[in-house]
């Protein structure tokens, strides 16, 4: 094996690739030989480090120095200064508000990483996802190898997973071991193992990052699942919108097949298991397990009533288990380190860690993995670095369109499945969107309802019609046309939706409304009674106004106005907006250099 004195890790997740990390690699490939150090320094293309907002990210080992927002043009300096002369390029090392001094730069120390515990993401950003040997060097395929060479009893493995306390990371939180046990105990010649990588929650990208950064962990876990329940075929259902993830997964499957880690007679045993990829086609409801299976069968993604549960009758009417990407990523390490190790982390009823995609109005946008029981406050203010621009925190939204908002008063809630449900939200797959004082909660509720109206499959009436009615009522509120009766109606429809829908999509579609009504009722009342939107987000309740004393009479706003509703005399009279003609596009406010235009 070749030894290198330094390793340069370049993040090639979707976020960083979008900001040209592939060009950074090209630059390194060109400049290392020019400096005659290509035999001393190895460039590794890795998955996501997590701190996506500061990408593209480059980390240089052995020091572990992290460079942020690296431009392909900066590569020459990193090579000549750091790699040749051993001097860190200070200017690229976190000019970041979250870390107080540049001394705290090493990736283990900065606030963003300090509170995290990377288990599901253990290999993301550490190995090259396109090299199976690197995964193997990190104990990859050790769990599978041990199981097959020792001919371990499947029920014993399932028991270990049950004892670890692992619950489904896709949102529902069903104990994974139990799911496997049900399927294992059903007698049938044909069974299937499926992986849900149809990450449809807007604002969530955990599964994508795992598939991009550590695809082999999912392949290994699915193979183990196949052995446990007695299946010989698996399907990964992945979003077509994730081209990099699909390509890395395909590549990993090919490598695993070449190494004999999937396919016929794995590790020389009599166990055979094959994997296939099925691409999703952009339907949120296909994240629901029965709908997902219909979609793999080539049908419309309509959910079917349960029971029968998929463990009894799932894909092609055969016993099937379906787990989410993050759940699978936990399996190999649980089996190598033991159930007790995993169960020692987390809270009483939620063990291990959870990955969240932290986004929205927060300083450190990115992927974070925390032990269960970490509080919302720790995530937002310590790991997330707080709200940018000195704005006030308002709420955190978890669980996407099925979840709810956690207000400031519940910031100290320790995160686990049950606490989040008690707070009126849910774990969901792990999107966590931070909202500040400028976010209107009624508008956000309507945003989610617009989403569910679009994504409701239309099969059951409460969901098909209920989401639409709720959307209409919310629109009425936002436009200032609603009365208090409408508010009451909104709550009533929300509850019928919750009680009457066939699948989780409809049952949870009301959550964004119910939770905002619970925690931010005053904002609804303001919209309905005072006809005001305090955040100036709702157009129907907002007017643009030019403060005459501040107007420099330059006329720029009038020039920019697309409907010519601003009048005044250049250099002489302050400009005035004709509110009756104004379409509230905000172009004037953007154009004004003197901040003389306000929303009120």
């Amino acid at each position: 094996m070749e030894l290198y004195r330094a390793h340069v890790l370049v993040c090639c997740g979707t976020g960083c690739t979008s900001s040209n990390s592939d060009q950074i690699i090209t630059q390194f490939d060109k400049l290392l030989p020019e400096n005659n150090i290509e035999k001393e320094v190895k460039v590794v293309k890795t998955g996501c480090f997590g701190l996506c907002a500061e990408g593209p990210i480059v980390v240089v080992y052995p020091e572990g120095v992290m460079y942020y927002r690296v431009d392909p043009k900066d590569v020459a300096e990193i090579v000549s200064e750091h790699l040749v002369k051993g001097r860190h390029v200070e200017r690229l090392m976190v000019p970041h508000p979250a870390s107080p001094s540049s001394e705290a730069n090493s990736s283990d120390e900065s606030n963003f990483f300090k509170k995290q515990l990377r288990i599901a993401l253990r290999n993301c950003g550490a190995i090259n996802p396109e090299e199976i040997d690197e995964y193997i060097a990190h104990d990859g395929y050790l769990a599978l190898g041990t199981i097959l060479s020792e001919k371990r009893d499947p029920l014993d493995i399932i028991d270990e997973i049950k004892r670890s306390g692992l619950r489904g990371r896709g949102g529902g939180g069903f104990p994974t071991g139990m799911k496997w046990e049900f399927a294992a105990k059903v007698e049938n010649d044909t069974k299937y193992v499926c992986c849900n990588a149809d990450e449809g929650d807007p604002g969530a990208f955990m599964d994508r990052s795992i598939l991009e950064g550590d695809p082999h962990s999912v392949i290994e876990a699915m193979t183990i699942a196949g052995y446990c329940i007695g299946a010989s075929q698996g399907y990964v259902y992945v979003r077509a919108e994730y081209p990099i993830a699909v390509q890395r997964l395909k590549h990993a499957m090919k490598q695993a097949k070449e190494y004999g880690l999937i396919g016929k007679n794995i590790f020389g045993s009599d166990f055979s298991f094959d994997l296939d990829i099925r691409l999703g086609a952009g339907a949120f409801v296909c994240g629901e397990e029965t709908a997902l299976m219909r979609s793999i069968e080539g049908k419309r993604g309509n959910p079917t009533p349960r029971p029968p549960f998929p463990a009894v009758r799932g894909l092609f009417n055969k016993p099937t288990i379906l787990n989410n990407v993050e759940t699978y990523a936990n399996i190999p390490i649980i089996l190598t380190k033991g159930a007790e190790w995993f169960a020692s982390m987390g809270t009483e009823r939620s063990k291990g860690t959870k990955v969240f995609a932290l986004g929205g109005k927060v300083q450190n946008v990115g992927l974070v993995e925390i032990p269960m029981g970490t509080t919302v406050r720790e995530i937002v203010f310590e790991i997330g670095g707080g709200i940018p621009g000195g704005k006030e925190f308002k709420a955190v939204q978890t669980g996407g369109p099925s979840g709810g908002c956690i207000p400031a008063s519940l910031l100290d809630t320790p995160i686990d499945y049950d606490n989040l449900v008690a707070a009126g939200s849910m774990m969901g797959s792990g999107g966590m969107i931070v909202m500040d004082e400028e976010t209107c909660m009624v508008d956000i509720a309507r945003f989610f309802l617009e989403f569910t109206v679009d994504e409701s499959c239309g099969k059951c009436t409460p969901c098909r019609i209920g989401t639409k009615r709720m959307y209409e009522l919310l629109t009425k509120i936002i436009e200032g046309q609603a009365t208090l009766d409408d508010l009451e109606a909104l709550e009533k429809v929300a509850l019928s939706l919750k009680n009457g829908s066939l699948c989780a999509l409809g049952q949870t579609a009301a959550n964004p409304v119910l939770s905002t009504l619970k925690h931010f009722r005053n904002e609804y009342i303001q919209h309905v009674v005072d006809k005001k939107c305090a955040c100036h987000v709702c157009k129907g309740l907002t007017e643009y106004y030019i403060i005459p004393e501040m107007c420099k009479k330059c006329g720029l706003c009038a020039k920019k106005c697309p409907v010519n509703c601003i009048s005044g005399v250049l250099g002489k009279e302050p400009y005035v907006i004709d509110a009756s003609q104004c379409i509230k596009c905000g172009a004037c406010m953007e154009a004004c250099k003197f901040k003389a235009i306000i929303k009120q």
Partner: protein
Amino acid sequence: MLSYAVGGESTVGKTKLTPEEMSKKLDEALTHYEGQGQKALMSALQEAQEIYGYLPLPVQKRVAMTLNISVAEVYGVVSFYSFFSLKPKGEYVFNVCLGTACYVKGAQKILERIEDNLGIKAGDVTTDRKFSISACRCVGACGLAPVILVNDDVYGRLTPEEIPGIIAKYKEA
């Protein structure tokens, strides 16, 4: 073999195909799926859309015949999934991410600016078929919010003022 020529040229990819070439490519692609039934439908449609850029009725009929299922079945699936399009797309597709992270960072304003600038609404295509806009759900690049994709080019951390410049770049292209 029946001809399934569809009006207009394919606008997908760099090379423009004639209707005859598209039809030939479709035939080639579909040979793998002959008689496989419903379970191959999604994959077959995905390949067909790669070629045509969208799924007009004649293409759907061709897929139905190949798989030996009804056209209604095919249409049901096409109209169910948002990835499948019944309308042609422009040469440059402006995909505006309306995921939650982008939304709270002002994606709606970005979309409105693009709509104003191109004079079409989301889901539509300009008469010269040069541009189309679609509002998409999370592309998973939340760290760069708000984000748009123009074909494969990603533009992140956008403000509405940057939009006219971006559009101009593609108008000249």
